[in-house]
Each structure stands twice: as structure tokens, then as C-alpha cells.
């Protein structure tokens, strides 16, 4: 690489923090034990595992015994949704989720529909928020689970978990949230927000990939989803990924420092303000209830992948929800759910920051982006 890249795709994944790497290092070739072994190596691993569990539990106001390690966000969401569904089918077969979930939640629900469960997909408003009344109206006697994403990965909308959770609690329905994007970036407290299950992962917060956790409130009726040697109290079998889990916990410790959130908030606001000066631009999502690192725009008359292509030539990494960039060749369902036209969804650009993002980088984006949009509009027949 000739020059340093400007990485603004932290919603996809983040750079592992040096301190995290350092913390993990000795777990590969020195403290390499299996936490189930009864010798010294095993005990060391077990201790590290339990230390990590404490750190993660504390970060969301949970008890250590309520944290179950998994291979990441996808597994945690699958485990939560399918595990609750199968354990509670005696009570009912109805699940409520939203139209703006991550694919791993939606596709878990789609699969459950094939197994005889019924799923309601709640609409969201123009900024991406679920209406508490809609949720209340949708709950029936057969409802066993409500699963609502906390911070949206595309548009950054932060749902009002406390209010939504209260409704679930009053109706005795389990409440799950996917907090992969919001974890350490905005308040997450299982008791205050009436949460029964929470999906967490590591690679969005400068930890390693392939590790995450599911918070399961004590007493929750859930079926294990991965069967085997009985690890994680028989709820998630498989030799624990100790190095990954240690890295995850270290990442959480560092990320809990609130000054990171303030800094990201400041830079994101600056970015949003600057980009909105370009004519024919809209901000997708809410200005207020928004993840501190997420900016998502739509530009009229230009296509998102092409914008990303020119940004890439300037060393700036971004993402888009345009049809051409999606596997299914349709514009992003999240952007469609907030009411965007095909043109608006195709003209979307997501820039997601991290605590490593600098003001200089944001200034550079603001310097080059207007020219890119102008050039592409000259190409456009619209």
C-alpha cells in the first residue's frame, strides 16, 4: 500500500486493537490448555475463561452464570431464536421480530416458519423505529419470543429497548435483542431494559472474529442448539475458544471507556453535517437516536457502488445498500423498510467510524466526496 487507507467500514468489522492482540498472544502456544482438562493447563484455561465471563457479564449488568460464549453474532442469534422456539412450543408457536433485522435473525425466523412456527415482521417508521403500540398489538396468547435489533447495522437507529422490553415483560414473553452493533456504544443493561437474551460479538469492537456471547437470563427456558461434550453448562458444546474469548474480554474492557463514544459521536456529527451540504443528499436514519459511529446517506441520481468505487480509488473504504452490491441484486431491505425509493436505496452510502478514526480522515472524506458525486451525476442519464 502506498498510502494509509481510511477505513470507514467499521460496521462490517474492525481492526483488532494491539492490546487485544497482546492479551491473546500467549494463549496460542503457552497457555494453550483445554478448559475441560483437570491438569494445570486446563485450570489456567478455565480461570481465564471465567475471568472473561465476569468482564462481559459486568459490562451489561448481568451475572457471570448468564453469559454463554459462542462463535459470534450469527451463532448467538440462531441459538437465541431457535433455542427459545423449540423450548417453548408447548406454550405457543408465534414469534415477533422486525423488518430491519440482520440476515441471521431473519433467516433463522424464515427457517422456523418452515418448521411450523408463525412469525410477524414489524414495520418501522421513516427513521427505522419500531412503534411500541405495534408491538403490543401483535402480541398474542401464543407469542413466545420478541426479537428486536438494538443498534441497526445499516442506518444506526437505536431502538428504545426499555419501553419495548417492558411490554414483553408485562405479557410474559421472552425479549431478545441483537446488540452486535450497539455493544459498548450505547447503554445496554439487561435489568433496566427488561432483556432476557442478548447477542454480543467481538469483531465489531476491535476484538477477534469468530467469538461472541449470548446472555441468557437465569431461569429462561431454552434448548441448546449445539450438542456435544457439554461445555457452557451443556448449553453450547465445543472446546472453548480461549484465545478468542480472552481477546473479546480485553476488547470489552477497553471499549467501555466512554470517551471513545464521545469522540466517535463528535466525528460522526461532523461528517454528517459536512456531507449534507452536498445538494440532493439525505441522511438515512435518525439524527438523535443514532449509533455514535454510523452515517448513512442517499445521493440523488448516482449509484452507491460507483460512489464506493471512486472513494476506494482515494483510499477510503465504505459500503452501500445498492442493488448491484447485494447478493440478491435488490436494494437493501432495511432502506426499503424505512420507505426509501429504489433510487434512494441504490444511491446509499454507509460510512462507519471507529475509535481509531481521526478528524483528519473525516476532513479528507469531506474534501473529496463532493467532487465524486458531481462527477457521477455528470455520467447519469436521470
Amino acid at each position: 500500500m502506498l498510502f494509509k487507507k481510511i477505513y470507514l467500514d467499521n460496521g462490517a468489522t474492525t481492526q483488532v486493537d494491539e492490546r487485544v492482540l497482546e492479551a491473546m498472544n500467549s494463549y496460542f502456544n503457552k497457555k494453550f490448555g483445554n478448559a475441560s482438562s483437570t491438569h494445570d493447563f486446563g485450570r489456567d484455561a478455565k480461570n481465564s475463561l471465567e475471568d472473561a465471563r465476569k468482564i462481559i457479564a459486568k459490562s451489561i449488568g448481568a451475572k457471570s452464570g448468564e453469559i454463554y460464549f459462542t462463535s459470534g453474532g450469527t451463532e448467538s442469534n440462531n441459538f437465541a431464536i431457535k433455542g427459545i422456539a423449540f423450548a417453548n412450543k408447548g406454550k405457543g408457536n408465534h414469534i415477533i421480530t422486525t423488518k430491519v433485522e440482520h440476515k441471521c435473525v431473519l433467516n433463522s425466523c424464515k427457517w422456523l416458519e418452515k418448521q411450523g412456527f408463525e412469525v410477524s415482521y414489524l414495520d418501522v417508521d421513516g427513521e427505522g423505529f419500531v412503534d411500541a403500540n405495534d408491538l403490543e398489538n401483535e402480541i398474542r396468547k401464543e407469542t413466545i419470543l420478541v426479537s428486536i435489533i438494538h443498534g441497526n447495522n445499516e442506518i444506526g437507529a437505536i431502538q428504545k429497548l426499555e419501553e419495548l422490553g417492558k411490554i414483553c415483560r408485562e405479557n410474559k414473553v421472552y425479549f431478545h435483542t441483537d446488540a452486535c452493533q450497539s455493544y459498548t456504544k450505547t447503554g445496554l443493561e439487561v435489568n433496566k431494559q427488561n432483556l432476557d437474551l442478548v447477542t454480543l460479538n467481538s469483531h465489531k469492537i476491535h476484538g477477534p472474529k469468530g467469538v461472541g456471547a449470548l446472555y441468557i437470563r437465569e431461569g429462561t427456558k431454552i434448548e441448546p442448539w449445539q450438542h456435544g461434550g457439554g461445555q457452557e453448562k451443556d448449553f453450547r458444546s465445543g472446546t472453548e475458544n480461549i484465545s478468542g474469548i480472552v481477546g473479546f474480554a480485553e476488547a470489552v474492557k477497553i471499549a467501555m471507556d466512554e470517551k471513545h463514544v464521545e469522540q466517535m459521536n463528535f466525528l460522526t456529527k461532523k461528517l454528517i453535517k459536512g456531507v449534507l451540504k452536498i445538494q440532493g443528499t439525505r441522511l438515512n436514519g435518525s439524527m438523535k437516536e443514532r449509533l455514535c459511529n454510523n452515517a448513512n446517506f442517499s445521493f440523488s441520481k448516482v449509484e452507491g457502488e460507483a460512489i464506493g468505487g471512486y472513494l476506494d480509488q482515494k483510499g477510503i473504504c465504505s459500503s452501500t445498500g445498492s442493488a448491484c452490491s447485494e447478493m440478491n441484486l435488490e436494494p437493501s431491505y432495511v432502506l426499503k423498510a424505512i420507505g426509501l425509493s429504489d433510487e434512494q436505496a441504490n444511491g446509499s452510502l454507509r460510512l462507519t467510524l471507529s475509535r481509531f478514526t481521526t478528524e483528519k480522515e473525516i476532513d479528507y472524506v469531506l474534501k473529496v466526496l463532493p467532487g465524486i458525486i458531481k462527477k457521477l451525476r455528470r455520467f447519469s442519464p436521470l
Partner: protein
Amino acid sequence: MYSKKVIERFENPKFVGEIKNPDAVGEVGNMKCGDVMKIYLKIEKGKIKNIKFKTYGCIAAISASDAMCELAKGKTLKQAEKITHEEIIEKMGGDVPQIKIHCSVLGTRALRKTIENYKNEKNK
């Protein structure tokens, strides 16, 4: 994901723009699929004297538009109609990601549609 050649064309397309008083125009694609391609032709003695495009779309679509124009310029209408999307991809350097082939196919469709418009107009 894209080859250097595709990116080069995307960065500096030679045929982007409009033609004043064109002999034919044609447009294909739609907003749902995310690519819209519009072609302008100047025709003299049955040959494509000049060709320009305007494209709303992804890197592949813009690059393919430009490659198609380069192939079509100077050809008779008969020859131009026979340009295949394989030839366009060849012109783009041969290396286009599989899921982007459909964006490149727009190039041949746009050209054929524009020529058809020209013929229909003449036969009126």
C-alpha cells in the same frame, strides 16, 4: 473484486456524455436492478459515426458502457447489432466478476435497442 482494467475504464470513460441532435437514442435497465444505460448515436451512411453513453449504475455498468461504445464506433449498424456481451467483457479486460455479468449484458441490450429505435424511426 474488480480488475485494474475495469477500474481504469470506470475512472476515465472516454465515451461518457451526450450527442446534440442525435440520430437515435435508447435506454435500458431500471431502478430496481440499479443500472440504467442511455445511448446516443450519430449515424452516417449506415455507419456509427459517433456514440456516447450516460449510465446510472455500478462500476461494471459504467465500465461496460464505455467498452461497448469503443467497440461500436465506426461499425456498420449490421455489425454493431452483432456485438455480443462476451466481446464487451473481452474489451473490459476479460475479467469481470460473475455476479456482475448481468450489468455488462446491459451494454449489448442498450446498443441493440438504440439501433432498433433508429430503424423504427426511419420506417415511419
